[in-house]
């Protein structure tokens, strides 16, 4: 029951340090790290550029950086990208919010209440075994090729990461904290609100971060298989017309998406979890 284990938390407390930012890194270290990273990227682009210029890399396989940049500029200037982005972002956000919302509610229900666990967890563990992409043909049959099937796919892709991490986070709250709360006569509602919820927030964030990238994945898949709008559609059309410069440009748009999402979650965690050791931004 009261094993004399020293929790990792305890050892962290022994060194009361308030890192200024970026996990205690000094700004010079941060600068060096960023410089090295950007150098690696520049090196890859330089190699790509040389290979294209020397003719050893055929433009049909991989267009030169200049061509890709031109394609990007073209997509932006004729408004195709903006239009496609707005419809795709709309799908992704709606799907993500609904899916994560369901995952969060079910995760808290199962994580906080015994009865919730019994009702929800077993079916969720069965459903999660289904790869969500396998559902697409079924969703097209059920919901048609319009918006519904796409949003449903994104919803079904985002429920589980959030559910699993919320449920796991709530169930893994240190039993000693719960016992402390009992000994201080906290009501169950207060235990949930003041102890379980805040303590499982980091885990919930892991779920949200993860589900936002599966939302992106589900968006790509659903738009490439059946769509008449959105960036996935743009990509497929360009591919059919063998405009590989546009294809690469759109892949880069997806990559920028991914990077922005990652930055967003780092910032969100930074501000929502001030009580944790700071993570590198």
């Amino acid at each position, binding site marked *: 029951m009261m094993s004399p284990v020293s929790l990792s938390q305890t050892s962290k407390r022994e060194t009361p340090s308030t890192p200024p930012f970026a996990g205690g890194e000094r700004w010079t270290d941060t600068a060096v790290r960023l410089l090295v990273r950007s150098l690696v990227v520049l090196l890859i682009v330089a190699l790509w550029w040389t290979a294209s210029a020397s003719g050893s890399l055929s433009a049909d396989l991989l267009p030169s950086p200049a061509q890709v940049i031109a394609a990007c500029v073209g997509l932006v200037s004729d408004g195709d990208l903006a239009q496609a982005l707005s419809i795709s972002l709309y799908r992704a956000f709606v799907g993500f919010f609904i899916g994560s919302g369901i995952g969060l509610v079910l995760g808290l229900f199962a994580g906080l209440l015994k009865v919730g666990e019994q009702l929800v967890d077993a079916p969720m563990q069965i459903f999660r075994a289904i790869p969500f992409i396998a559902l697409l043909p079924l969703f097209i049959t059920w919901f048609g090729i319009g918006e519904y099937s796409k949003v449903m796919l994104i919803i079904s892709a985002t429920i589980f990461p959030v559910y699993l991490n919320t449920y796991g986070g709530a169930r893994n709250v240190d039993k000693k904290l719960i016992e402390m709360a009992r000994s201080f006569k906290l009501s169950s509602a207060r235990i949930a609100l*003041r102890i379980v919820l805040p303590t499982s927030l980091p885990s919930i964030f892991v779920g949200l971060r993860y589900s936002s990238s599966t939302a992106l994945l589900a968006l790509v898949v659903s738009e490439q298989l059946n769509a008449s709008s959105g960036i996935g559609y743009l990509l497929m059309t360009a591919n059919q017309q063998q405009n590989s410069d546009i294809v690469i440009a759109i892949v880069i748009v997806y990559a920028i998406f991914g990077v922005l999402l990652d930055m967003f979650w780092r910032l969100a965690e930074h501000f929502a979890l001030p009580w944790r050791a700071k993570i590198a931004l």
Partner: protein
Amino acid sequence: MNTVRLQAGSDAIGPRALAPRVALQGVSKIYNGRAVLDGIDLDLAPGEFLAVLGPSGTGKTTLLRLLAGLERVDGGTVGVPKVHSVVFQEPRLVPGQRVWKNVVVSDRWSAASRERALSALREVGLQDKAQSWPKDLSGGEAQRVALARALVHEPELLLLDEPFAALDALTRIKMHALVDELWRAHLPTVVLVTHDIDEALLLADRVIVLREGKVQRDIALSEPRPRDRSSAVLGRLRTGLLRDLGVDQGQHTGVAQQVTV
């Protein structure tokens, strides 16, 4: 079960003179067929400071958890005052709540409860840490917050389970002085579980040694406070207690040194 019997006509002084007593009668606790506690009888007067010693695994924590109501007895009865609180070996602070909210973790959070938290923190010398997060506290500070949390509701019974065992020797000495001071200011009944004989001798009115489920020894201490750990009386008691705990000072000075810190 709460003791409601009052110590009428007690000659004890202070606000706790009429507080309910702690009363254990024939208490036993069985784990896996083994009686960890085997018919313990123990009566504590209001405001009494009891230290519980015993080799590890003799049921000191079990005894404390029974008093805290975190465990049920398998036999006998336990009577404790209604308002009681525990300081565990680890601080057990909620990492996602600021220090002051940890102190009044069971109250409605308001300006009034914040004031209560601040005054409890002032008593343990941490008023300027009220807004800190638990991760930014040292081990000693975190344990002082746990002490403030236990004292904020003026408990009639304060239960301490090796609260300083994880602290370095210097911090521990400061904590002893703090506990002594807080006890004299509030006069709760205290049950302090410890494996540090000096801690027991410095702080307690009464020391019991648990062994094989029973109270093997029960010693009253009347040395004036604050106590000097090098006093001759305490030295004799220390030698006796070490023998009770199965450590022969003559032959194993190294071990004895370790036990007494």
